[in-house]
């Protein structure tokens, strides 16, 4: 709330930001934007929101949301992702999704395609509960997985599951610009009916001579293992793969296999990979403490499963903020960067990056890193 919107470096303040400096005197301690939000949530400058204008079920467990971003949105590059805040069970979760629409889209909207994954509470929530008219907080487009401006290149896309989204955006962008080079695309899915954006992919394949799509169904046919990624398969589907720039996105096992294959062929430099990072850390079975890292202070030490992290920090020579030492005043609140901690009062384990940790009543449950 206290952080004003950062203007682009070098740009002079806009008329609106000059005006809002004055109107903020009327709105204090809030900002003008908080009151504009009452009229239209898309006009806010203190946070950015997007309105869900369309939901479309791609498969039985994948859904495309069309989002209209607020005024401060800036265009993305095909392949970039965006942070989306989702309220589920009263809590606010942040997840990163690739923008699946090309930047050339004319109505200023963009789409994200979400696949419900096993145990993924949030992706399930998006796929089942989000409806048209909802407002979701969003970030600005980020990420360096995009095509270079300098053409021509001959891309080879290797994707699996919801890893299709950045490739879909890139290919569509090239088509919209009318400069699609010779493109090969290998996509893996368990079954034909599981292919996210399948209809669109097939249509693109039909209408574009230079786009070559190979859909591989890893759980269909007599011998499904033949449909898994291998260099032999690559030779068969795309004989000139060693000359191509490879853009890969999918589950870690696939990415590892591709990396190995490219390394063996001596073409690692041609490989571009986008990884989806898991927001949760697995809870270790024994959970008996571990290495504790304090990111800002750059201190690393050991913490056992009984000693509050505040004490661990103090014994390591730090003096982090604290108050009551009994969990009521929240002066010691900090964020979990990664790893697991346990609330000593309830035994609850926090393992989601970004969780708020009260250091005076939480102890390490395995390795952890705190923003202190």
């Amino acid at each position, binding site marked *: 709330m206290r952080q004003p919107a950062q203007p682009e470096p070098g740009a002079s303040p806009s008329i609106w930001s000059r005006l809002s400096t004055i109107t903020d005197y009327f*709105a204090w*301690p809030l900002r003008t934007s908080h009151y504009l939000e009452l009229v239209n949530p898309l006009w806010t400058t203190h946070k950015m929101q997007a309105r869900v204008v369309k939901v479309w079920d791609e498969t039985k467990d994948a859904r495309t949301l069309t989002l209209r971003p607020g005024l401060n949105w800036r265009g993305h590059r095909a392949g970039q992702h965006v942070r989306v805040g989702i309220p589920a069970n009263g809590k606010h979760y942040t997840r990163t999704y690739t923008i699946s629409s090309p930047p050339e889209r004319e109505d200023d909207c963009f789409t994200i395609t979400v696949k419900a994954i096993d145990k993924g509470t949030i992706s399930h929530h998006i796929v089942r509960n989000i409806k048209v008219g909802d407002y979701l907080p969003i970030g600005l487009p980020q990420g360096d997985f995009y095509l270079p401006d300098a053409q021509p290149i001959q891309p080879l896309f290797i994707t699996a599951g919801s890893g299709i989204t950045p490739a879909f955006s890139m290919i569509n962008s090239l088509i919209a610009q009318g400069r699609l080079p010779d493109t090969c695309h290998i996509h893996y899915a368990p079954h034909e009916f599981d292919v996210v954006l399948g209809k669109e992919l097939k249509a693109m394949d039909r209408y574009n001579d230079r786009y070559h799509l190979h859909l591989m169904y890893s759980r269909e046919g007599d011998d499904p293992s033949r449909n898994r990624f291998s260099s032999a398969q690559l030779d068969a589907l795309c004989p000139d793969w060693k000359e191509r720039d490879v853009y890969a996105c999918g589950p870690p096992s696939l990415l590892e296999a591709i990396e190995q294959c490219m390394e063996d062929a001596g073409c690692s430099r041609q490989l571009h990979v986008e990884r989806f990072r898991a927001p949760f850390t697995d809870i270790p079975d024994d959970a008996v403490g571990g290495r504790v890292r304090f990111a800002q202070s750059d201190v690393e030490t050991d913490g056992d499963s009984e000693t509050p992290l505040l004490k661990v920090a103090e014994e390591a020579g730090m003096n982090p903020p604290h108050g009551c030492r009994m969990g009521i005043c929240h002066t010691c609140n900090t964020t979990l960067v990664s790893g697991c901690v346990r609330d000593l009062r*309830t035994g609850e384990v926090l393992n989601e990056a970004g969780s708020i940790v009260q250091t005076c009543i939480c102890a390490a449950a395995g390795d952890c890193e705190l923003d202190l």
Partner: protein
Amino acid sequence: MKTHQYPVDLTDEQIEEFGRELEAIRNEVFDSRGDRDRAYILKVIKTQRTMAVSSRFVIYLSLFFIPAWGHALATWPVALTIMGLGVFALGIAKILENMEIAHNVLHAQWDWMKDPEIQSNTWEWDTMSPSDRWMHSHNVVHHTWTNVLEKDLDVGYGIMRVTPMQKWKPAFLLQPIYFILLMLLFEEGVAIHEQAIDDHLKGKNKLKDFTPLLKRIGYKVWRQVAKDYIAWPLAAALVAIPISFYVPFSPLLVFGMVAGANAVANLIRNIWAFTIIFCGHFPAGAHNFTLEQVEGETRGRWYLRQMLGSCNIEGSKLFHILSGNLSHQIEHHLFPDMCSNRYKEVAPRVRALADRYGIPYNSASLFRQFGTTWLNNLRLAFPGGGEPYEPRREEASQS
């Protein structure tokens, strides 16, 4: 076995068991937080913001009914009635913001939602005290050391004698006047309610030791004053300047009326907040504690102290919301970071638990709670009134 010095007839084990039962209530509620609670706080915030901005425009609207306009409805009674409505609504909006929203957000009651907009460490509230300063003196000092003499600054706020345990001195003769002054200037009082300032008045530190603190408070005060007494009145006065060529009224009058309206709204909030907050720990029957009593205090005893030192006020649903659910002061002190809409649900359970253990549960009407607070204040302005307590200076200064 009884080794504790709390005024209850319970064994040590019983107190710990009592604490565990409270903990169970707490955990049950914390585990069940969800969409319903989020919807509640979002609705209160939206209502408050809508009310705050529209009431200010109702105050503006009333300016079109001052007699100088010459139309049929342009009379002082009409103008003042409309302005009164605006002032009342603005006062309520400020009460909602301070009590049901900010007080509770700053207690980290809503941090569990992880909504970056509703976090205790970034929220700034509509009062002169900077929120982080208040969080220290309130969340840390007051909530940890509730009603412990020489530790909890809120016991008499350094200017009043609220328990006979405080030693009488002649300055307390004036405390009925402080009482009224603090009621009217509660916002300002809270802003300067600081250990450092208190120490300075006792000559324990130098002004330059806490200049950065004063600057922070000063900036917050300036922005509050700039909003209520400069920005909103000035905008009206600027519009009034061209109009005043045609309608015979002075832009200065317009400025004064809007500033005055805002002042009254702040006054309404001050009086209400003072009334509710003074009913929290000062009515008859609330216990105070000495440092000796709380030495080596366990979690169970901490719970017991919170319960013995706090008082509830009974009232309707709307009353509870307008009091920021501080009418459930006991529940708030037991579970300071439980979201406020749940206090009314746990209150019957806490009360039943207190009855079972024979612990007094101080709950009564606003009339009784504020009445005894006021009588207490008058009585304790004079010496006596109960068992005095001689603090053991050496020990106190060591801790």
